[in-house]
């Protein structure tokens, strides 16, 4: 935790004297002695605005009442919060606020959780002296998801301030003046924004509410459960509210979770996938070529029988398994145990393979951890932040808020290497906050990193003790960097020596330097080398093992980090320890009382190849849909068609599931218990909030049941028992505290790396990536994460579909002009792989020559992509291609 100013002051509030940190606001100090000062405009996340005047208190020696929300405590201050004068003031302010407030509580969704209602109950008489006409605003349509009822507004501006200060979106405007001030959006169309739901959550009254749950409930009818959002690696805590097992609303409480009450559109509006009518409710089995409904017994027996037969005939090597990083740790753990012990194979993989593996492997090699050495708090407290290929607003929006906080509120220096132009749009753009922005194509992120490294050595910014003690490392890296020419770097990245020098200076000057990287880099063919370069950069600067410093790779899927730690990948046993690591194996054997198979496993792409060649005969695919997510040249269908047994555990009948012999319906994360490990390595409890849909079961129960039928029972009666086993085996799962205890860089590993360990692939990592050629008439197409979608669940959430219901190819305004395109036109994209058509949308933030296609709508465009595999980490690279673009009339 960052150390806040140690200075304290003593203040007396209603006779209680306490010590609080200097700068604490009176309203917060009062809370500590149990005095709750009524307020509307104050919110701890926002800068005080003191506009509602509700929080007036008496401060000794001050002639007027003071607003507790904006007055910092001073040494010796004496404050009274409950005198007659203060009470009268509260009453009178409330009388003013109520004057124009409509009396529509019975039809107001805020009823029962309304600050105005509560304070009125506390302070005012039941009749009003206000005998005049109440202010009335014309009702205006606001947006499909957010409803406004401006007559109820108390003009505290919390929504507007939140949208600006926290989100940096600035979509809301207080319009007009005086009593007629009204919160609006701009333009004749509905609100267009990040739809984080922040305005709904922060409104103290019912002026801004969610349309998804309009008129459906009164707060006291709702059952609440705290769990973790299943969408991205940020791991936000959410409160799921249900009425008779119906999902009504999701929100998040201030002070709760790693997100501290903030959410993104997916978290706030995306909860309806669980109750989607297309959910699978019964097991399906293939009979005469078609999938038909069956019983769990028949399905499981069929699988056990077939699997048993295959194992007998061909051995464990005939099996392969793939699981999604959206499963709980318990499920991931049991999956790999099932694959390894019951079926006898290491051929298993998870979605962490798509990118997260790159960063984990790099961190293990250089600093001996598989996790961050920093926390979200360190991001907020950082004085210099370097972002590389994060696409952070869209991919990890809540981590993005920490970055915004650091830059906007704490004046951190932000350096960004992103394929993104700074431009104001309807969703926030991290490049706008950056002091040193390098707008670089994803294929060239590494070039920009090399530029920074080169500037560091040339500006003599290498840490002195490193130069002295690790001269071989410094010399070798320096020599490599000197071979690169500034000319080439400038041509590739558009930024020259001086720009890099300035950014390098800033990095070196920082005391708390965090490098954040994301899937833009990690899912590219430069992913592993790029992560290594970033770690080298931190080493050179002497920051890698400094407190508050480190590398923070962002996980895209909510539990990718957990998948690796649970050993749900071919090369790792739980820990993660390498399958070949003898002492690690021993520890596993100790717990399992049985040895995992010795033959090394293969990763996803090789598994599919083996399926196609017939060496793998059965596959268990859990929550993944390789047929839709992998590009055509991989011929996934051909591979899967060859299998003697394909079992899919799914929420919906996906393309892949449609090919299966047996499809088993499983629980969504709202329907089961367990844990998720978020991107910073924090393990958090997932709790059941609704009953499973139909006969759906948690994935772990299925592995457990099958293992029994196959004669190697992995017996657990509830997921907590699995967690207990995980705790005994994997460090970091001991307790589920409120904040993670970050891992520490391991000295011995660093020493090993700095003496010889760095040499292995030095030449490759210090070579500039090839600049892809982009002939006229072509664009470089990238699959990018959309803020509103993260995969099949988001596509089944009615709220998210209302915001973004179909795909469009985002192109730059310049290309729009060049190709003669406007919003809504269709283009034909073609390359040697294939041809598709797509609708275009012009977006200021897209760099010229690039075209972004939203991932998860990508099935069609997948035709255009090829696949390259990282030889070191086996990560398949499938995100970028180039194609010629022509307008279709």
């Amino acid at each position: 935790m960052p150390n806040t100013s140690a200075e304290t002051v003593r203040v007396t509030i209603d006779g209680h004297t306490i010590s609080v940190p200097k700068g604490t606001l009176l309203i917060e100090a009062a809370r500590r002695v149990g005095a709750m000062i009524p307020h509307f405009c104050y919110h701890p996340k926002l800068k005080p605005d003191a506009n509602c005047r509700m929080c007036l208190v008496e401060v000794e020696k001050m002639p007027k009442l003071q607003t507790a929300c904006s007055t910092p405590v001073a040494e010796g201050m004496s404050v009274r919060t409950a005198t007659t004068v203060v009470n009268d003031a509260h009453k009178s302010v409330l009388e003013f606020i109520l004057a124009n407030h409509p009396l529509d509580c019975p039809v107001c969704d805020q009823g029962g959780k309304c600050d105005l209602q509560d304070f009125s109950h506390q302070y005012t008489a039941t009749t009003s002296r206000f005998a005049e006409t109440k202010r009335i605003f014309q009702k205006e349509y606001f947006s499909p998801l957010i409803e406004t009822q401006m007559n109820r507004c108390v003009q505290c501006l919390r929504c507007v301030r939140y949208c600006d200060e926290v989100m940096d979106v600035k979509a809301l405007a207080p319009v007009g003046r005086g009593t007629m001030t009204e919160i609006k959006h701009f333009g004749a169309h509905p609100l267009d924004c990040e739809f984080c739901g922040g305005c709904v959550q922060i409104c103290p009254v019912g002026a801004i509410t969610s349309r998804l749950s309009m008129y459906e409930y009164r707060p006291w009818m709702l059952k609440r459960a705290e769990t973790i959002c299943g969408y991205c690696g940020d791991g936000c805590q959410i409160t799921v509210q249900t009425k008779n097992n119906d999902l009504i609303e999701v929100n998040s409480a201030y002070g709760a979770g790693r997100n501290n009450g903030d959410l993104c559109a997916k978290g706030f509006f995306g909860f309806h996938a669980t109750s989607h009518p297309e959910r699978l409710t019964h097991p399906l089995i293939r009979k005469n070529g078609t999938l038909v409904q069956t019983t769990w017994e028949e399905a499981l027996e069929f699988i056990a029988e077939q699997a048993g037969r295959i194992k007998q005939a061909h051995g464990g090597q005939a099996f392969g398994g793939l699981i999604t990083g959206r499963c709980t740790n318990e499920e991931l753990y049991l999956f790999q145990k099932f694959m390894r012990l019951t079926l006898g194979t290491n051929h298993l993989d998870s979605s962490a393979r798509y990118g997260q593996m790159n960063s984990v492997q790099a961190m293990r090699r250089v600093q001996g951890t598989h996790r961050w050495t920093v926390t979200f708090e360190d991001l907020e407290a950082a004085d210099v932040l370097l972002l590389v290929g994060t696409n952070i607003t869209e991919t990890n929006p809540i981590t993005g808020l920490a970055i915004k906080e650091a830059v906007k509120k704490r004046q951190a220096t932000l350096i960004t290497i992103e394929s993104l132009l700074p431009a104001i749009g309807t969703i926030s753009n991290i490049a706008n906050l950056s002091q040193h922005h390098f707008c670089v194509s994803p294929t060239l992120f590494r070039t920009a990193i090399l530029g920074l490294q080169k500037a560091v050595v040339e500006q003599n910014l290498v840490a002195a003790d490193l130069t002295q003690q690790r001269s071989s490392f410094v010399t070798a890296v320096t020599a490599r960097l000197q071979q690169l020419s500034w000319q080439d770097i400038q041509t590739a990245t558009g930024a020259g020596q001086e720009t890099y020098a300035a950014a390098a200076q800033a990095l070196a000057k920082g005391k708390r330097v965090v490098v954040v990287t994301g899937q833009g880099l990690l899912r590219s063919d430069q992913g592993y080398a790029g992560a290594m370069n970033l770690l080298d950069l931190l080493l050179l600067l002497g920051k890698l093992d400094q407190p508050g410093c480190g590398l923070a790779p962002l996980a895209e899927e909510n539990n990718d980090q957990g998948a690796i730690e649970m050993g749900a990948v071919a090369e790792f046993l739980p820990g993660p320890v390498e399958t070949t690591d003898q002492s690690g194996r021993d520890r596993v054997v100790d717990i399992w009382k049985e040895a995992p198979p010795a033959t090394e496993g293969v990763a996803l792409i090789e598994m599919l190849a083996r399926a196609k060649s017939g060496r793998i005969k059965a596959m268990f695919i859990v929550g993944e849909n390789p047929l839709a997510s992998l590009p055509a040249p991989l011929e996934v269908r051909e591979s899967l068609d060859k299998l003697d047994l394909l079992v899919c555990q799914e929420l919906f009948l996906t393309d892949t599931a449609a090919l299966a012999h047996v499809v088993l319906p499983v629980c969504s994360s709202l329907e089961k218990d367990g844990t998720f490990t978020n991107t910073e390595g924090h393990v958090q409890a997932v709790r059941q909030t609704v009953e499973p849909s139909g006969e759906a079961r948690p994935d772990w129960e299925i592995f457990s049941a099958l293992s029994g039928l196959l004669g190697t029972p992995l017996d657990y009666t509830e997921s907590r028992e699995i967690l207990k086993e995980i705790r005994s085996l994997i460090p970091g799962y001991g307790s589920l505290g409120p904040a993670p205890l970050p891992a520490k860089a391991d000295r011995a590993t660093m020493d090993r790396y700095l003496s010889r360990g760095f040499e292995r692939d030095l030449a490759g990592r210090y070579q500039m990536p090839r600049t892809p050629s982009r002939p006229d008439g072509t664009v470089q197409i990238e699959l990018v994460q959309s803020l509103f979608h993260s995969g099949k669940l988001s596509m089944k959430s009615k709220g998210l579909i209302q915001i973004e219901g179909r795909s469009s190819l985002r192109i730059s305004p310049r290309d729009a002009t060049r190709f003669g395109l406007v919003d809504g036109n269709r283009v034909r994209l073609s390359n040697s792989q294939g041809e598709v058509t797509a609708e275009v949308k012009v977006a200021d933030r897209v760099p010229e020559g690039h075209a972004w296609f939203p991932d998860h709508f990508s099935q069609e465009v997948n035709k255009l992509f090829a696949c390259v595999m990282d030889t070191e980490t086996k990560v398949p690279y499938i995100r970028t291609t180039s194609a010629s673009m022509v307008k279709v009339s």
Partner: protein
Amino acid sequence: MTLSEKYKDEIAEILSRYPVKRSALIPLLYLAQREPGYVTEAAMTEIAGLLKLTPPQVYETATFYTMLNLKKVGTHHIQVCKSLMCALVGSDTVIGWIKTKLGIAPGETTADGLFTLTAVECLAACGTAPMMQINDDYYERLTEEKVDKILADLRTAGTSPLKSGPYMWPESTR
């Protein structure tokens, strides 16, 4: 035509006055209003782009100030001061005259789009009340004949010599 095409140099000059771009917002809104008499949605979007603001930020500022119109007003925008100091010496009568002469009440525009009448608050001419402002010009110490003449001038010439020069009241030296 966009504002940047039309007023390129003027915009550059305005921007050069301030170390922080957003300060140029009101001057640019005036520029946008100069010809059409009001600020269009397109202009606000363009200004947002020029100043690196979001359109709602431009909008919220524009709606705070009474002199920025978001809707069309007449060619001659007659604004009669109705605050106490003018009212003491007859501003309500002035409004009455204009109402009858032009057939419009405050807030309305003549059918030909020539005149809009607005009753406004104090315009810092209380010593020379009653008074009104029409577009950029002040007209003070109004009498009925003066009002007639001003309206006639505006109709025929688009401007009136009766408008005030640099303020000085009382005029005579003591």
